[in-house]
């Protein structure tokens, strides 16, 4: 199972607490994880990536294994630790200073 950590506002929106576990068939990539996430939690469609273009929203970041994967192609295979479920994929709301 793939583990996903959502930012607080999206957990509230989807009414989940803690991590989300997803069963991904085929290659595990940001896109395939988000496809399954959005099919389980339709309210999250449009909140992480744009509806039509599927581009990451500007203030969303994808972290895994202490790496920022936000600028990787969304069909890039995720690290083995994510695939094995030993590490979560972190979906993060970018910092806003002030």
């Amino acid at each position: 199972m793939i583990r996903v950590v959502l930012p607080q506002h999206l957990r509230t929106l989807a009414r989940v607490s803690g991590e989300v576990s997803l069963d991904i068939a085929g290659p595990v990539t940001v896109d395939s994880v988000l496809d399954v996430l959005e099919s389980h939690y339709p309210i999250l469609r449009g909140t992480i990536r744009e509806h039509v273009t599927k581009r990451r929203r500007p203030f969303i970041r994808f972290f895994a294994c202490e790496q920022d994967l936000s600028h990787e192609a969304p069909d890039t295979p995720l690290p083995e630790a994510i695939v094995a479920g030993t590490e979560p994929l972190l979906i993060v709301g970018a910092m806003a200073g002030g």
Partner: protein
Amino acid sequence: MSTIRLLVGTRKGAFILTSDGTRKQWAVDGPHFGGWELYHLKGSPVDPDRIYASQTSSWFGQVIQRSDDGGKTWNPPGTRPEDLMGTDGMPKGESNMFLYDASEKTGKPLTTHQHYDGSQRPWEFKRVWHLEPSLTDPDTVYAGVEDAAIFKSTDGGKTWKELAGLRSAKGQLWQPGAGGMCLHTIVLDKGNPHRIFVAISAAGSFRSDDAGQTWRPTNNGLTSKYELPDPDAEVGHCVHCITMHPSRPNVLFMQKHWDVLRSDNGGESWQEISGNLPSDFGFPIAVHAHEPNTVFVVPIKSDSEHYPPEGRLRVYRSKTGGNEWEALTKGLPQQDCYVNILRDAMAVDQLDPCGIYFGTTGGQVYGSADGGDSWTPIVRDLPAVLSVEVQTLP
């Protein structure tokens, strides 16, 4: 006795303020959607328990929320009651898809507008500024959005379709103002369901007479000598708000970037009625519930300050339909006040005497239960107020 319910949208959530008809003691409920910007909430005139809300975030985009019990519980439209049952229950609605009409027939010629640098840019959805429920059907609601366009839902907010004819009204010439290219005002005509007025920042006012299929600019008489190279241009005027009294649908009142104006012919032409206002800049404009010629504005110092002149918060009232204005100050701060009142942040109730309410960027919501003669702060320390709407419940 009647109940008054104020729907307050703020930078960090929604609040519902409730009082009986005396309007002296208020209960504060909220924040709903804490941490999100609530640009606008508005109840259906047909079913007051049906309330639509625009929940938006620079991080996570747009969500439409709907309450069917007067604001006690909220769900994205499209969520069925059974979706919420059980420990794993969750909303299945996904009411946040606002796709511009790009069809060959109606959308293709309209896909770009002018940008700051003079180039043409494609329309790009950013957020819903204003929700206007139908006067006759609780499942029908209009949304005014940025980049400027109007959308309509006929299934309670679950799905949205653009009324793309609006962008044919010289949309290629519209360009964003400092606050964004937003459609912020939608006025429906109770006596004529085919007529709709909208207003867009830095584009102007527009009217449809066929239920939103086709539109034309209604800016004759607007003058913007400091904002536009052609002061009398057909489009490009920065209209801030329009209002009407339902008994006189051909009489419209407008607060423009500069100037307060009035039309007596359904927007065909406008005349300035700023009269003796200390500043004719401002954002909201409201009309009394029972006196169609009594109008309220809040003068603001500009072009860049955006706070009350002399630090004195004054609502101005005209009982003559404009030109002659009186300052209403009792109960409002008359020194060191530097808040703003945004375009959707003033509204009236339907009681007699009429109640008037407005919210400030300093987080205060003020109310008057005597037609504006005196004011009381209902709450003082909310996040910056973006919108105030009133429901008068039996």
